[in-house]
Protein backbone atom coordinates (compact mmCIF):
# COMPACT_ATOMS: atom_id res chain seq x y z
CA UNK A 1 0.00 0.00 0.00
CA UNK A 2 1.47 3.40 -0.94
CA UNK A 3 1.57 6.54 1.21
CA UNK A 4 -1.47 8.18 -0.38
CA UNK A 5 -3.59 5.08 0.16
CA UNK A 6 -2.44 4.92 3.78
CA UNK A 7 -3.42 8.56 4.30
CA UNK A 8 -6.84 7.99 2.76
CA UNK A 9 -7.37 4.94 4.96
CA UNK A 10 -6.39 6.94 8.04
CA UNK A 11 -8.77 9.75 7.10
CA UNK A 12 -11.55 7.20 6.76
CA UNK A 13 -10.93 6.14 10.36
CA UNK A 14 -8.22 3.48 10.19
CA UNK A 15 -5.57 4.41 12.79
CA UNK A 16 -3.32 1.48 11.86
CA UNK A 17 -2.73 3.09 8.44
CA UNK A 18 -1.18 6.12 10.12
CA UNK A 19 0.82 3.88 12.46
CA UNK A 20 2.26 2.13 9.40
CA UNK A 21 3.15 5.47 7.85
CA UNK A 22 4.88 6.69 11.03
CA UNK A 23 6.87 3.45 11.39
CA UNK A 24 7.99 3.85 7.78
CA UNK A 25 9.49 7.32 8.28
CA UNK A 26 10.23 7.70 11.99
CA UNK A 27 13.86 6.56 11.86
CA UNK A 28 14.67 8.73 8.86
CA UNK A 29 13.10 11.81 10.47
CA UNK A 30 14.91 11.14 13.74
CA UNK A 31 18.29 10.70 11.99
CA UNK A 32 17.78 13.92 10.03
CA UNK A 33 16.73 15.83 13.16
CA UNK A 34 19.78 14.53 14.99
CA UNK A 35 22.16 15.47 12.17
CA UNK A 36 20.81 19.01 12.23
CA UNK A 37 20.39 19.60 15.97
CA UNK A 38 23.06 17.26 17.43
CA UNK A 39 20.77 16.70 20.37
CA UNK A 40 19.26 13.23 20.92
CA UNK A 41 16.40 14.40 23.16
CA UNK A 42 15.55 17.29 20.87
CA UNK A 43 15.66 14.95 17.85
CA UNK A 44 13.10 12.70 19.60
CA UNK A 45 10.83 15.67 20.30
CA UNK A 46 11.19 16.93 16.72
CA UNK A 47 10.33 13.46 15.38
CA UNK A 48 7.18 13.31 17.51
CA UNK A 49 6.15 16.89 16.67
CA UNK A 50 6.77 16.34 12.96
CA UNK A 51 4.24 13.51 12.83
CA UNK A 52 1.84 15.33 15.13
CA UNK A 53 1.92 18.42 12.91
CA UNK A 54 1.57 16.27 9.81
CA UNK A 55 -1.52 14.48 11.15
CA UNK A 56 -3.12 17.74 12.25
CA UNK A 57 -2.44 19.31 8.83
CA UNK A 58 -3.32 16.37 6.60
CA UNK A 59 -6.07 18.47 5.00
CA UNK A 60 -3.30 20.81 3.75
CA UNK A 61 -1.41 17.99 2.03
CA UNK A 62 -2.35 18.53 -1.60
CA UNK A 63 -0.60 15.44 -2.95
CA UNK A 64 1.36 17.59 -5.43
CA UNK A 65 4.58 16.36 -3.84
CA UNK A 66 5.19 13.01 -2.18
CA UNK A 67 4.26 12.48 1.46
CA UNK A 68 7.95 11.84 2.15
CA UNK A 69 8.96 15.24 0.78
CA UNK A 70 6.14 16.94 2.67
CA UNK A 71 6.97 15.36 6.01
CA UNK A 72 10.70 16.05 5.62
CA UNK A 73 9.84 19.68 4.95
CA UNK A 74 7.94 19.83 8.24
CA UNK A 75 10.89 18.20 10.02
CA UNK A 76 13.45 20.59 8.51
CA UNK A 77 11.34 23.61 9.52
CA UNK A 78 11.03 22.32 13.08
CA UNK A 79 14.80 21.70 13.17
CA UNK A 80 15.54 25.20 11.92
CA UNK A 81 13.21 26.63 14.57
CA UNK A 82 15.10 24.62 17.13
CA UNK A 83 18.43 25.86 15.79
CA UNK A 84 17.15 29.39 16.10
CA UNK A 85 16.57 28.87 19.81
CA UNK A 86 19.65 26.86 20.70
CA UNK A 87 23.37 26.93 20.02
CA UNK A 88 25.12 23.64 20.60
CA UNK A 89 28.79 23.59 21.49
CA UNK A 90 31.26 20.82 20.71
CA UNK A 91 31.59 19.87 24.38
CA UNK A 92 27.94 18.87 24.46
CA UNK A 93 28.40 16.93 21.23
CA UNK A 94 31.31 14.98 22.69
CA UNK A 95 29.30 14.17 25.81
CA UNK A 96 26.45 12.84 23.69
CA UNK A 97 28.78 10.57 21.79
CA UNK A 98 30.68 9.44 24.89
CA UNK A 99 27.43 8.41 26.54
CA UNK A 100 26.60 6.08 23.69
CA UNK A 101 29.84 4.14 23.22
CA UNK A 102 31.53 1.18 24.96
CA UNK A 103 35.09 1.17 26.29
CA UNK A 104 37.42 -1.32 24.54
CA UNK A 105 40.49 0.02 22.72
CA UNK A 106 39.00 -0.82 19.35
CA UNK A 107 35.78 0.91 20.21
CA UNK A 108 37.70 3.88 21.57
CA UNK A 109 39.44 4.29 18.21
CA UNK A 110 36.10 3.97 16.46
CA UNK A 111 34.59 6.37 18.92
CA UNK A 112 37.33 8.90 18.25
CA UNK A 113 36.82 8.56 14.52
CA UNK A 114 33.04 8.86 14.83
CA UNK A 115 33.43 11.73 17.20
CA UNK A 116 35.60 13.57 14.74
CA UNK A 117 33.31 12.79 11.82
CA UNK A 118 30.30 14.12 13.70
CA UNK A 119 32.19 17.14 14.87
CA UNK A 120 33.22 17.80 11.27
CA UNK A 121 29.62 17.54 10.11
CA UNK A 122 28.53 19.89 12.87
CA UNK A 123 31.08 22.45 11.63
CA UNK A 124 29.59 22.53 8.14
CA UNK A 125 27.18 25.46 7.66
CA UNK A 126 23.59 24.53 8.43
CA UNK A 127 22.11 24.72 4.91
CA UNK A 128 25.00 22.68 3.49
CA UNK A 129 24.59 20.10 6.25
CA UNK A 130 20.87 19.79 5.54
CA UNK A 131 21.56 19.36 1.81
CA UNK A 132 24.24 16.70 2.49
CA UNK A 133 22.04 14.87 5.01
CA UNK A 134 19.01 14.82 2.73
CA UNK A 135 20.95 13.92 -0.42
CA UNK A 136 23.46 11.41 0.94
CA UNK A 137 21.67 9.82 3.90
CA UNK A 138 17.99 10.09 3.10
CA UNK A 139 18.50 9.27 -0.57
CA UNK A 140 16.42 12.20 -1.81
CA UNK A 141 16.88 13.65 -5.28
CA UNK A 142 17.98 17.25 -5.91
CA UNK A 143 14.42 18.12 -6.89
CA UNK A 144 13.00 16.68 -3.66
CA UNK A 145 15.63 18.44 -1.54
CA UNK A 146 14.89 21.70 -3.38
CA UNK A 147 11.21 21.29 -2.53
CA UNK A 148 11.97 20.58 1.13
CA UNK A 149 14.44 23.44 1.55
CA UNK A 150 12.37 25.77 -0.65
CA UNK A 151 15.35 26.67 -2.83
CA UNK A 152 16.27 25.98 -6.47
CA UNK A 153 17.84 22.71 -7.62
CA UNK A 154 20.98 24.66 -8.52
CA UNK A 155 21.19 25.99 -4.97
CA UNK A 156 20.80 22.43 -3.62
CA UNK A 157 23.68 21.23 -5.80
CA UNK A 158 25.83 24.16 -4.69
CA UNK A 159 25.02 23.57 -1.01
CA UNK A 160 25.66 19.86 -1.34
CA UNK A 161 29.01 20.23 -3.14
CA UNK A 162 30.22 22.99 -0.83
CA UNK A 163 29.26 20.84 2.15
CA UNK A 164 31.13 17.82 0.78
CA UNK A 165 34.12 20.03 -0.03
CA UNK A 166 34.16 21.42 3.51
CA UNK A 167 33.93 17.90 4.97
CA UNK A 168 36.88 16.80 2.82
CA UNK A 169 38.94 19.72 4.13
CA UNK A 170 38.02 18.92 7.72
CA UNK A 171 38.90 15.24 7.28
CA UNK A 172 42.22 16.19 5.71
CA UNK A 173 42.97 18.38 8.73
CA UNK A 174 42.07 15.42 10.94
CA UNK A 175 44.46 13.09 9.03
CA UNK A 176 47.24 15.67 9.19
CA UNK A 177 46.74 16.07 12.96
CA UNK A 178 46.75 12.27 13.45
CA UNK A 179 49.91 11.78 11.39
CA UNK A 180 51.69 14.64 13.17
Amino acid at each position, binding site marked *: MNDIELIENYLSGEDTA*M*EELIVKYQKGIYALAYRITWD*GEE*AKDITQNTFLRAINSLNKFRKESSFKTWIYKIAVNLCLNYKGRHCLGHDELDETIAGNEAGTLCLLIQKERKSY*LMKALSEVPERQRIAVSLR*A*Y*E*GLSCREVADIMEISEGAVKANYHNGIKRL*KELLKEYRDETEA
Partner: protein
Amino acid sequence: MKQKHEDIKEKLPEYFSGALSEEEKTTVKGHLDGCRDCRDELELIEAFGKVDPPDPGEFFWAGLPRKVISLSKEQKVRFPAFQWFLRPPALAAAVLLIAVPLFTMLYIQNRPGNYYDPLFSDPLSASAVDYSWLTEDDLTEVSAKLIFNGDAIDVPVGIFDENSYHEDIASLSSKELDSLFRELKNEKIGG
Protein backbone atom coordinates in the same frame (compact mmCIF):
# COMPACT_ATOMS: atom_id res chain seq x y z
CA MET B 1 34.74 13.20 -20.18
CA LYS B 2 34.40 16.25 -17.89
CA GLN B 3 30.59 16.22 -18.31
CA LYS B 4 30.50 12.54 -17.57
CA HIS B 5 32.53 13.04 -14.40
CA GLU B 6 30.14 15.73 -13.15
CA ASP B 7 27.14 13.55 -14.01
CA ILE B 8 28.60 10.61 -12.11
CA LYS B 9 29.39 12.83 -9.14
CA GLU B 10 25.74 13.92 -9.03
CA LYS B 11 24.71 10.28 -8.81
CA LEU B 12 27.01 9.28 -5.93
CA PRO B 13 24.38 9.81 -3.17
CA GLU B 14 21.94 7.62 -5.10
CA TYR B 15 24.73 5.07 -5.67
CA PHE B 16 25.40 5.03 -1.93
CA SER B 17 21.72 4.68 -1.00
CA GLY B 18 21.21 1.99 -3.67
CA ALA B 19 18.62 3.96 -5.60
CA LEU B 20 20.26 3.49 -9.04
CA SER B 21 19.30 0.94 -11.67
CA GLU B 22 21.68 -1.93 -12.41
CA GLU B 23 22.83 -0.24 -15.61
CA GLU B 24 23.57 3.04 -13.81
CA LYS B 25 25.36 1.19 -11.01
CA THR B 26 27.69 -0.47 -13.54
CA THR B 27 28.42 2.90 -15.18
CA VAL B 28 29.22 4.55 -11.83
CA LYS B 29 31.34 1.61 -10.70
CA GLY B 30 33.32 1.70 -13.94
CA HIS B 31 33.95 5.43 -13.47
CA LEU B 32 34.97 5.00 -9.81
CA ASP B 33 37.75 2.59 -10.75
CA GLY B 34 39.51 5.33 -12.68
CA CYS B 35 38.51 8.48 -10.75
CA ARG B 36 40.22 9.25 -7.47
CA ASP B 37 38.08 12.36 -6.81
CA CYS B 38 34.78 10.44 -7.02
CA ARG B 39 36.22 7.57 -4.94
CA ASP B 40 37.17 10.04 -2.18
CA GLU B 41 33.73 11.57 -2.24
CA LEU B 42 32.01 8.20 -2.02
CA GLU B 43 34.32 7.18 0.81
CA LEU B 44 33.34 10.35 2.64
CA ILE B 45 29.63 9.70 2.16
CA GLU B 46 30.08 6.12 3.37
CA ALA B 47 32.09 7.23 6.41
CA PHE B 48 29.39 9.66 7.51
CA GLY B 49 26.71 7.14 6.67
CA LYS B 50 28.21 4.78 9.24
CA VAL B 51 27.93 7.40 11.96
CA ASP B 52 24.51 6.58 13.29
CA PRO B 53 22.71 8.89 15.67
CA PRO B 54 22.23 7.50 19.21
CA ASP B 55 19.42 4.97 19.16
CA PRO B 56 16.54 6.15 21.40
CA GLY B 57 15.59 2.49 21.97
CA GLU B 58 12.90 0.07 20.92
CA PHE B 59 10.49 1.41 23.53
CA PHE B 60 10.54 4.83 21.84
CA TRP B 61 10.10 3.45 18.32
CA ALA B 62 7.31 1.06 19.32
CA GLY B 63 5.39 3.68 21.30
CA LEU B 64 5.77 6.66 18.99
CA PRO B 65 3.00 5.90 16.44
CA ARG B 66 0.28 5.33 19.06
CA LYS B 67 1.50 8.27 21.14
CA VAL B 68 1.35 10.66 18.18
CA ILE B 69 -2.12 9.51 17.12
CA SER B 70 -3.53 9.78 20.65
CA LEU B 71 -1.96 13.25 21.10
CA SER B 72 -3.53 14.35 17.84
CA LYS B 73 -6.95 13.12 18.97
CA GLU B 74 -6.54 14.87 22.33
CA GLN B 75 -5.79 18.15 20.57
CA LYS B 76 -8.82 17.75 18.32
CA VAL B 77 -11.04 17.17 21.35
CA ARG B 78 -9.56 20.17 23.13
CA PHE B 79 -10.01 22.53 20.17
CA PRO B 80 -12.69 20.89 18.01
CA ALA B 81 -13.99 23.72 15.85
CA PHE B 82 -11.86 26.69 16.80
CA GLN B 83 -8.43 25.19 16.26
CA TRP B 84 -8.05 27.18 13.04
CA PHE B 85 -8.84 30.34 14.97
CA LEU B 86 -5.72 29.94 17.13
CA ARG B 87 -3.39 30.09 14.15
CA PRO B 88 -1.65 33.47 13.81
CA PRO B 89 -3.00 34.47 10.34
CA ALA B 90 -6.59 33.61 11.28
CA LEU B 91 -6.22 35.39 14.60
CA ALA B 92 -4.81 38.51 12.92
CA ALA B 93 -7.64 38.51 10.35
CA ALA B 94 -10.25 38.19 13.10
CA VAL B 95 -8.76 41.08 15.07
CA LEU B 96 -8.71 43.24 11.92
CA LEU B 97 -12.32 42.38 11.11
CA ILE B 98 -13.39 43.59 14.53
CA ALA B 99 -11.01 46.53 14.94
CA VAL B 100 -11.32 48.23 11.52
CA PRO B 101 -15.13 48.79 11.51
CA LEU B 102 -15.03 49.75 15.20
CA PHE B 103 -12.33 52.41 14.76
CA THR B 104 -13.92 53.70 11.55
CA MET B 105 -17.26 54.17 13.34
CA LEU B 106 -15.60 55.90 16.31
CA TYR B 107 -13.65 58.20 13.98
CA ILE B 108 -16.72 59.24 11.99
CA GLN B 109 -18.70 59.96 15.14
CA ASN B 110 -15.96 61.96 16.81
CA ARG B 111 -14.31 63.87 13.98
CA PRO B 112 -14.34 67.72 14.35
CA GLY B 113 -17.27 69.64 12.80
CA ASN B 114 -19.45 66.65 12.67
CA TYR B 115 -22.86 67.05 14.25
CA TYR B 116 -26.11 65.25 14.34
CA ASP B 117 -28.52 66.64 11.74
CA PRO B 118 -32.15 65.71 12.44
CA LEU B 119 -33.13 66.58 8.84
CA PHE B 120 -30.69 63.95 7.56
CA SER B 121 -32.17 61.09 9.48
CA ASP B 122 -35.80 62.27 9.69
CA PRO B 123 -37.02 64.74 7.03
CA LEU B 124 -40.48 64.97 8.67
CA SER B 125 -38.91 66.74 11.58
CA ALA B 126 -38.55 69.85 9.33
CA SER B 127 -41.79 71.04 10.89
CA ALA B 128 -39.91 71.43 14.13
CA VAL B 129 -37.44 73.92 12.61
CA ASP B 130 -37.73 77.50 13.88
CA TYR B 131 -38.46 80.01 11.02
CA SER B 132 -38.92 83.00 13.31
CA TRP B 133 -35.60 84.48 12.27
CA LEU B 134 -36.83 84.96 8.63
CA THR B 135 -37.76 88.55 7.65
CA GLU B 136 -40.30 89.69 5.06
CA ASP B 137 -37.43 90.54 2.71
CA ASP B 138 -36.18 86.96 2.87
CA LEU B 139 -39.64 85.67 1.98
CA THR B 140 -39.99 88.22 -0.86
CA GLU B 141 -36.69 87.11 -2.34
CA VAL B 142 -37.64 83.44 -2.15
CA SER B 143 -41.07 84.21 -3.72
CA ALA B 144 -39.39 86.10 -6.59
CA LYS B 145 -37.18 83.14 -7.29
CA LEU B 146 -40.16 80.84 -7.38
CA ILE B 147 -42.14 83.19 -9.69
CA PHE B 148 -39.26 83.62 -12.13
CA ASN B 149 -38.44 79.94 -12.12
CA GLY B 150 -35.57 80.07 -9.71
CA ASP B 151 -31.98 80.95 -10.47
CA ALA B 152 -32.26 80.76 -14.26
CA ILE B 153 -33.58 84.34 -14.37
CA ASP B 154 -31.68 87.25 -12.97
CA VAL B 155 -34.14 88.63 -10.48
CA PRO B 156 -33.73 92.36 -9.88
CA VAL B 157 -33.25 92.98 -6.22
CA GLY B 158 -36.02 95.08 -4.67
CA ILE B 159 -38.65 94.38 -7.34
CA PHE B 160 -41.17 93.78 -4.60
CA ASP B 161 -40.05 96.45 -2.18
CA GLU B 162 -42.09 98.94 -0.14
CA ASN B 163 -43.00 100.90 -3.36
CA SER B 164 -44.76 97.94 -4.85
CA TYR B 165 -48.58 98.12 -5.24
CA HIS B 166 -49.21 94.44 -5.07
CA GLU B 167 -50.61 94.58 -1.54
CA ASP B 168 -52.90 97.51 -2.47
CA ILE B 169 -54.17 95.71 -5.55
CA ALA B 170 -54.73 92.52 -3.61
CA SER B 171 -56.90 94.41 -1.11
CA LEU B 172 -59.30 95.85 -3.80
CA SER B 173 -62.84 94.53 -4.12
CA SER B 174 -64.13 93.12 -7.42
CA LYS B 175 -65.95 96.41 -8.29
CA GLU B 176 -62.84 98.44 -7.59
CA LEU B 177 -60.79 96.03 -9.69
CA ASP B 178 -63.26 96.38 -12.62
CA SER B 179 -63.08 100.13 -12.35
CA LEU B 180 -59.25 100.04 -12.28
CA PHE B 181 -59.22 97.71 -15.26
CA ARG B 182 -61.40 100.04 -17.32
CA GLU B 183 -59.22 103.05 -16.47
CA LEU B 184 -56.08 101.16 -17.52
CA LYS B 185 -57.80 100.05 -20.74
CA ASN B 186 -58.82 103.62 -21.56
CA GLU B 187 -55.25 104.76 -21.02
CA LYS B 188 -54.06 101.76 -23.15
CA ILE B 189 -51.83 100.33 -20.47
CA GLY B 190 -51.32 96.62 -20.91
CA GLY B 191 -49.63 94.02 -18.83
